[in-house]
């Protein structure tokens, strides 16, 4: 299969610079450890925020970390789409007789993110053991869906950024605000922020669907109907539909940059 070949190629190339890959990965892990320490310090000082405790927040950190790292690792081609346009490499991909989506998944696989995926899973497990929840089969399904929803929403954001870059050529900073902003916002339950910020990240960009909504259901807090919280990750996944349509339209409009 073609994807296996891509996979092998990227593993080989990252092993060429083994020390560098490991060093960069360690640096990234350190950044996350510092951020977790930040979350811990706030809860150490203030105990709870709007009824949520440290481990509730830690599970959100785990979800964000795992899903972001996973998506950035395997969908790096979409993340770096603006660079592909700028350098003209996109033209090369478009003339090949293979589906463009497929090729973009193989265009780049970033293994230095691998440590972060593992760290995210470890953090999630620590949090899951410590939170106050009566687990049952349904809750486990919702939790798994939450992780899937996270990956899909982040991937959708990459699609939007990629689609916009067809028109602007440049990678726009405000797109980074949305992706990185939602990342850091989602370390904490989104409903502690001001109303318009919460609404923006619930109804426009469904970050809440892998944040406080499903966790309200699992832990059993908050005043939103629990059935709605339970299906929220499934609703969040639908976000990909408009994003895919937008990306497709943009790709059809693509004319090349002449490089």
């Amino acid at each position, binding site marked *: 299969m073609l994807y296996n070949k891509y996979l092998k190629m990227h593993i080989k190339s990252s092993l060429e610079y083994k020390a*560098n890959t490991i*060093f*960069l990965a*360690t*640096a*990234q892990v*350190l*950044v996350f450890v*510092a*951020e977790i*320490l*930040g979350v811990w*310090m*706030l809860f*150490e*000082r*203030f105990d709870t*925020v*709007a009824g949520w405790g440290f481990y509730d927040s830690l599970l959100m950190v785990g979800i964000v970390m795992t899903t972001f790292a996973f998506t950035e690792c395997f969908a790096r081609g979409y993340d770096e789409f603006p660079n592909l346009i700028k350098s003209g490499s996109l033209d090369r991909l478009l003339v090949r007789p293979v589906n463009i989506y497929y090729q973009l998944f193989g265009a780049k696989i970033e293994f230095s993110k691998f440590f972060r995926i593992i760290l995210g899973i470890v953090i999630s497990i620590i949090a899951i053991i410590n939170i106050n929840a009566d687990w049952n089969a349904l809750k486990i399904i919702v939790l798994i869906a939450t992780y899937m929803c996270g990956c899909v929403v982040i991937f959708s954001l990459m699609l939007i950024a990629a689609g916009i870059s067809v028109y602007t050529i440049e990678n*726009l*900073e*405000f797109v*980074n*605000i949305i992706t990185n*902003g939602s990342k*850091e*916002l989602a370390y*904490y339950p989104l409903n*502690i*922020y*001001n109303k318009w*910020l919460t609404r923006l990240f619930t109804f426009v960009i469904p970050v809440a669907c892998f944040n406080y909504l499903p966790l309200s259901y699992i832990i059993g807090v908050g005043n939103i109907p629990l059935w709605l919280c339970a299906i929220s990750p499934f609703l969040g996944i639908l976000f990909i539909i408009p994003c895919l349509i937008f990306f497709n339209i943009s790709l059809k409009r693509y004319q090349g940059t002449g490089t």
Partner: protein
Amino acid sequence: MKNTYVSIFKMQFKGELQYRAKAISGIATQFFWGIMYIYLYMAFMSSDTIDGFTITQMASYIWLGQAFFALRYPGMHKDAGYEITNGNICYKFTRPINLYNQWYTEYLGEKLASTLLRFLPIIIISILLPTKYSLSMPANFTAFILFLISLIIGGLLCVAISMYSVYLTFITLSPKGTTTIVATIANLLGGAIIPIPLMPTSIQSILNFLPFRYISDLPFRIYIGNIGISDGLVQIAISIVWLIIIIVSGKLLIKNALKKTIIQGG
């Protein structure tokens, strides 16, 4: 000799001023993060004060941090890391110039220019916000003067700490990884990730013995009046001692690293 560094500084300064579009989007980003952090900490600080640190003071602390973001973030000059890894550093050896001083002034120029481009719009917008979220006036006039002095020392300290990244790049040969590590440590211990007044008290007392909080925590807290005038003066003196220690040790380390540098041709 003095003139050399002045012109290096000017060159960097002018170069950085070219990137106005980058600055505008940078300002928008800083602004968004500022608002986000204020909402976040407001949610945690459900009562209005915590050990004398009020919500208004917290908002001012955040806005100053956003306005002087470039001055408080220890990175590395874009050329320095590149020269070390690709070997172009050998050309620098042929020049009668102290490399530490050159890298230091280059990076200071870059930082100062990017600060000057960004800080004013953020300050103006944040003053105009509703009182609860706004940047308030300095505690008093003396505090403002001390704020300026400690901010300058903080900027110099930040560049001095950045020079450790340059030194470590000689060993790791990965400028990106090295700066990430140094910046993360400095940010965490200097109160750029979580403001120091919001940290657990036991951790605050440990951080008092480290140099990182003199980069931005001290000037900001003098500005908002969280640290008084006499206490502020003592701490400014301590920060000067730290600045000297870090510059002198950095100079020695880089001198040592340069002695061991081998250019492998190519």
